[in-house]
């Protein structure tokens, strides 16, 4: 039973952490972030299964996390009012070529990072951008100005 509780506690903490840290950390995975992700995964495993090396223990932990993931998606789908809390909302970063500085600060993003993302979308200048939106998955979508 304790393995189910530990898995649920770790799931809740990680979910809260990811929602509170902001999307910048999710969208821009540098090599160091990937290493951190692996390290966090290892630490989480120790916290959840501890000295339990059994297949039953692993199945219980995975099943608990899978069920909670489905529960969160189901709640997000069925209760629209909770959707912003569970999944987040898009954030406007650029409007008509003008950077919305306050929103960049909120997400701890720099203009250089947005420019880099724009270049990856074959956009040479932010002045060409009508809308840039930080999506809930951490990526930035660009809508160019009409010619």
């Amino acid at each position, binding site marked *: 039973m*304790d393995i189910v509780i*530990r898995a649920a506690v770790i799931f809740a903490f990680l979910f*809260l952490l990811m929602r*509170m840290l*902001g999307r910048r950390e999710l969208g821009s995975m540098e090599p160091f972030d990937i290493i951190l992700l692996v390290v966090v995964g290892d630490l989480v495993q120790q916290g959840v299964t*501890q*000295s339990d090396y059994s297949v039953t223990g692993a199945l219980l932990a995975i099943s608990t996390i899978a069920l909670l993931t489905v529960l969160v998606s189901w709640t997000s789908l069925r209760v629209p009012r909770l959707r912003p809390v569970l999944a987040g*909302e*898009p*954030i*406007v970063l650029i*409007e008509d070529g003008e950077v*919305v500085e306050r*929103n960049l600060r*909120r997400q701890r993003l720099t203009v250089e990072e947005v420019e880099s993302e724009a270049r990856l979308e074959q956009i040479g200048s932010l002045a060409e951008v*009508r*809308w840039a*939106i930080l999506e809930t998955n951490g990526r930035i*979508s660009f*809508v160019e100005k*009409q010619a």
Partner: protein
Amino acid sequence: MSDLPQGIDLPRHRDFEGKAAGQWLRHAFLLALAVFVIAALLNAFGARPQTQEAGAAAGTLKITAPERVRGGLLYQARLQIHADEAIGAPTLVFDKGWIEETTINTVQPEPAETTSDPRHLKLRYPPLAPDRTLDVYISLQANPNDVGTHDADVALYDADEEIASIDRTQVNFP
């Protein structure tokens, strides 16, 4: 017709209208994380050892062991018995909080006799001459399933006569 992308509502997604509480919540969460980490540095969750001492005319008992441990943690308890007078049967008596759901890896030096009753574990050592000191090292590991507060008193007896007693409480974190 507006060229606003579908699903985007400017007051909400650009100006954060009605979302002030969310921002404060995020700051509060980050503050709570910082407090959590600082508390850990200040030994709120173990496992820095504390030293306690008790004594009487016959001798003194000193213990150095953590009072807060986390599940799975390997830790050591060091007990020092100093005899001011001859102690015929120096016996360390541990509350069951020491042994319940805890793995005792080693006890060095090994006692001459180990006994127990429903509430205690007793380790008896050979006689101790006046002004001699005996150091006992116990290596332990907290069972990850054992969470909560336990009485972890320890006492020094000469056979059945109590010489000194130390009141301790051990907290096991998950």
